[in-house]
């Protein structure tokens, strides 16, 4: 299953972007059911806590190799652009203890929220990732506008294209990447 997920993911990361917007798609994070989850230390958080910042919402798991590849980059993004208004928030679809150990070992400097496999799959679907492929990243603008979502590794190029303009007070290019359930 994981091998397949990795394969799907490898394919997904090569998929051409942007994808077209589906008609009737919700395009604002704050119009979705609130995302409320405990973090790796058991403290409950709502995604709305970070409203007003540019949120890079990253779904991952410790067993997912591509997820582990992108995490050092996400740490660097948070460190460099956190003071400018970026907030990386991750949702680990995994065992809390594994996530906590991993976060400590690698020095993750942003919140890691926790959810189980079944709930995680539903959450992914709700956020537009029907195949349940990891990693999966959503960029939410300061006003909640969903700017970008993509399965596969979120790289620096994506950051420069979709996140940095928002931090500089510009509109992100209109990529039409938001393909999700209404």
């Amino acid at each position, binding site marked *: 299953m994981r091998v397949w997920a990795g394969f799907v993911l490898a*394919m997904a990361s090569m998929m051409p972007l942007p994808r077209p917007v589906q008609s009737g798609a919700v395009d604002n994070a704050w119009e979705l059911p609130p995302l409320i989850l405990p973090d790796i230390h058991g403290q409950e958080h709502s995604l709305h806590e970070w409203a007003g910042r540019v949120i890079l919402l990253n779904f991952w798991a410790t067993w997912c190799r591509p997820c582990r590849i992108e995490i050092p980059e996400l740490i660097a993004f948070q460190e460099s652009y956190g003071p400018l208004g970026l907030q990386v928030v991750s949702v680990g679809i995994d065992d809390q203890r594994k996530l906590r150990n991993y976060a*400590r070992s690698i020095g993750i400097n942003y919140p890691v929220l926790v959810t189980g496999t079944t709930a995680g799959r539903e959450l992914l679907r709700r956020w537009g990732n029907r195949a349940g492929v990891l990693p999966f990243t959503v960029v939410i603008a300061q006003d909640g506008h969903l700017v970008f979502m993509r399965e596969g590794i979120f790289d620096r190029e994506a950051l420069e294209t979709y996140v940095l303009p928002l931090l500089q007070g510009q509109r992100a290019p209109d990529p039409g990447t938001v393909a999700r359930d209404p």
Partner: protein
Amino acid sequence: MDMNAAPFLRVSRVFGLAVTLVLIASLQAQAVSAPQVLARVGDAEITALDLEQALMSSPIADQLLTLDPKEQARIRGDMLVRLVDFQLLYQEALALGLDKTPQFQREMTNFRTGLLAQKYELKLRDEVQVPEKVDARIREQLKGDGDAIEAARSAYVARAYKALKAKRVEELKERYGVKVYPERLEQDPKPDTVLAEGDKFRIYYRDLVFGSPERPMEMYDQLDGLVELLVFARAGLEAKLDIADQMEEFRRDLLARMVVDRKKREWIPDRKTLVAYFQAHPELGRVAEKREIAQIVVATRELAEELRKRILQGESFYKLAKEYSIDPYGRKHAGQMGWLPEGSGMPQIESALKGLKDGQVSQVIQTPKGFHLVMIERRIPGRQQTFGEIEDRVERALMQEKMAPYLQELAKRYPIQWTMEDHVEPSDVQAH
């Protein structure tokens, strides 16, 4: 972020040394910048980078960082000990002059040939690109379907690579004047029958390591494969492909392995030795009885006695376990603890289980966890395995037993210096 949780670890050396290591659990291969020396073996150094690289290429790599700090430290410690052992064996191999032996030279040559050919094939694959025109056509036909576009590109590359490879083999055969004599395979070949030859190489019948004259197609395929390997290796050599790092790694592994093989021949000269060892250690073949256990744990003896009475009067063990057990797992699973091998429980419980019949509830057993009632639901009897069933395990056990004092002996010749004094917790150091 819990970065201060530096784990402490006690490593009991096979050499009788005791070292307490503090390893930074967050250390990662890519994060190691300065080559911190962890140990010296003779003149060789083992650095934190060596350790992390070894860990990252081990099967545990995927889970390592998800483990608790102490467990991570234990694994790092074990790996460091293995690296030290490896160094001891490597240095002994050099001292024994094993790098001058024909076996070593032969294995190095074979590995080099295979590696060069493999690298040349990779280079060849890189030469295949999807032409702009073909790519445009694929994109046009499969508009926006990323997966299908990628699959179509891969299929194109695979086909083109196959054709390019076949063409290149023929070109190289011509360049190196290779002549192949497949017909000789059907003419009662002898070990020194030449099946192919070219500039600076020959393939003999004895080089075909598997297959038999009864299955000539397999032998033809093997011959083709060998010819391909040799011409690619030659082309790789001419292209000056860089294989130095892999060769060095292989050289060290091979030498260490050769020392172990030598000792193995000395310690286990024949199968009789293994049989004798098995007879002296029958426990190696002992398969413990497995029992499906039900359990209730409560906080007081009175309650345990009361529940026991109720069970004896006909109430369900499982229902009561679900209602009263203070053990979270047992409560959740209505007391069903699953299949457990004999000897795996706490001593008090093991001893109570000993005289118990299937379906019979035990007396109240007191342990530090509380007051237990246990019951064996079903059991699979234990048995003694035969030598034939576990020959490999017997060999490993004997090797392990012999290897410990041997490494200790090597450590006297190539002294080990642990260079982690700064990290030793005095209170944790014990003399062994």
